[in-house]
């Protein structure tokens, strides 16, 4: 390589760095920066009126799992916190499973229509994104509350005497999240099913597989990348959901997102909020790693 070429190479590399600098700066400032601040805050002391006081402490981290009794100063397991964690994980898993159960037939149906119908149906799937999440969630509230559309209709039809209490229950949160995140499951599933070679179905039936066996042995293993993508897209935002549990779950049925917000607001315990945020991040990352690992291992021996 000549000296001139070397110089050109170095210049190219320098240009590449220069060109990607804006993106790198934004990433550093907007993503890594705040995360770092949150991490630092989780090791500080809470300020009296919010904010933090500079003084190193593990209190926030301890506070995730245990609470200090204000009378005798002993530490006890924080039942309330654990209930919130458990509700978040449970509702997120339920939402993921249920959006899959509903989304898979939907995606299959769309993928097997004519191209014109497919375009129309996919368009319909994306329509909810046009309206703000908050407004959509309030709309659900209007439908399921005790004096709402659903209960009024059921009572008018004489099917029930008393309104069925749905609003401000875990079920209401689950219902809302399923509605909100269903498109995120349907779209990747559709993409995977669209690539699926339908002729493999005939090959399966021809080789003595029943419809159920074709589903289990041929369809599901082949569209698995879509299932994984859809599950991740639904599970992660579910775990951190804030608006839905706030509006449909009321004050009592909090999820992690609401609990974190509470610490930064009324709770005036920023370090605890920061520690909870980092915990949520780690839980999501571990869940992702386990899931991807599990999915990859399995695909080798479908």
């Amino acid at each position, binding site marked *: 390589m000549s000296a001139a070429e070397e110089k050109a190479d170095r210049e190219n590399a320098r240009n590449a760095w220069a060109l990607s600098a804006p993106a790198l700066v934004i990433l550093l400032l907007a993503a890594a920066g705040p995360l770092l601040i949150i991490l630092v805050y989780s090791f500080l002391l809470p300020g009296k009126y919010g904010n933090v006081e500079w003084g190193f402490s593990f209190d926030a981290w301890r506070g995730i799992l245990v609470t200090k009794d204000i009378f005798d100063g002993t530490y006890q397991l924080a039942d309330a916190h654990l209930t919130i964690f458990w509700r978040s994980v449970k509702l997120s898993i339920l939402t993921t499973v249920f959006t899959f159960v509903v989304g898979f037939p939907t995606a299959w149906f769309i993928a097997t229509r004519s191209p014109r119908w497919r375009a129309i149906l996919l368009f319909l799937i994306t329509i909810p994104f046009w309206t703000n999440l908050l407004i959509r969630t309030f709309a659900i509230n209007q439908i399921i509350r005790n004096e709402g559309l659903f209960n009024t209709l059921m009572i008018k039809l004489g099917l029930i005497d008393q309104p069925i209490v749905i609003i401000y229950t875990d079920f209401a949160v689950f219902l809302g999240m399923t509605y909100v995140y269903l498109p995120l499951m349907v779209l990747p599933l559709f993409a995977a099913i669209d690539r699926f*070679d339908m*002729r493999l179905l005939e*090959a399966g039936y021809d080789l*003595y597989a029943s419809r159920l066996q074709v589903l289990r042995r*041929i369809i599901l293993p082949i569209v698995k990348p879509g299932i994984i993508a859809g599950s991740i897209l639904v599970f992660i935002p579910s775990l951190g959901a804030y608006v839905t549990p706030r509006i449909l779950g009321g004050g009592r049925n909090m999820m992690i997102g609401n609990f974190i917000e509470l610490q930064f607001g009324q709770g005036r315990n920023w370090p605890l909020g920061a520690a909870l945020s980092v915990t949520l991040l780690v839980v999501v990352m571990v869940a992702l790693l386990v899931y991807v690992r599990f999915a990859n291992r399995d695909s080798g021996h*479908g």
Partner: protein
Amino acid sequence: MTDDAIIDVVEVSKGFGSADARVIALDAVSATIRRNEFFTLLGPSGCGKTTLLRLIAGFELPDSGEIRLDGEEIGHLPPHKRPVNTVFQSYALFPHMTVAENIGFGLLMQGRPAGEIRETVGRMLTLVRMTEMADRKTNQISGGQQQRVALARALAPQPKVLLLDEPLSALDYKLRKEMQIELKRLQHETGITFIFVTHDQEEALTMSDRIAVMSNGKIRQIGTPRDIYTHPVNRFVADFIGETNFLKVRLANGVANLAGGAQVDIGAGGRDGEVTLAVRPEHVRIGPAGAPNSIAATVRNSVYFGTDSHIYMDLADGTEVVARIGTDAGGSAGPEIGAAVGLSFAAGAVQVLED
């Protein structure tokens, strides 16, 4: 080959589309396929050959008629309840499984014990010479190898009948020739009845025990390759299988009177009147003009093919006749363009067509 039937197709009809725009794919087709034979469905695309195969496999259900396997009506069973397997045109191998898993899939679905599956898969891998590839994924092997895996997968459950839907059409010429021989070998070694669909007449002639020539949803003729080549029953079959000269003649007492006044004795009695004669190019003899009982013709063109030459000639009434003459050792080019010649036909080479 024994003569007992394994598959009986009885008056089967099948149409597609809505009631007002119905396309008839099969029109009251009947055929008997014998045990252990290599039976070919041959015809141009859209003739109904693939539909007939799919009806036997169970991917389509007949509108009317019966399909019997070993005397039992199977026409309305789903595919997974029929002891027949298919080699698909696209192979349709399962991309998430290895070669060995593909081959073992049918056995697994039949609920055979693991030991038996392993043993059979091993035998099938040897049969199609793919033992070294057993653990490859199907996208890591070549087209010809995929073809062999598809064959092994369909043969592994030991079906009573193997259905092959244009399995060689995706292969290049050389590989296709190899696979034709391979298929014959497999059929011979396994003793399974093969029903083979193709639009390639050469493939059909070289591989089949018997051929059914189809067009427009009907079987036009069933017979051995020799039968069909030498005694085509109608113009479609004669035209589709190999090259043929057609001559419009008046038949009277076994003698054909051509437009130019020449007479040809065709021996076998046909019905008197206007008929069409079929003569293969290799049975056309070219002699000197004016020879007794010959037909006057003029040479229009001559094409040299190495092993033989094709001589294109016009009769007095404008009918085109092609002759194929073998190249002799001296390398003579045959008659010159524009020469007047007299044509005659080899004895027994002239076929009277039904229509």
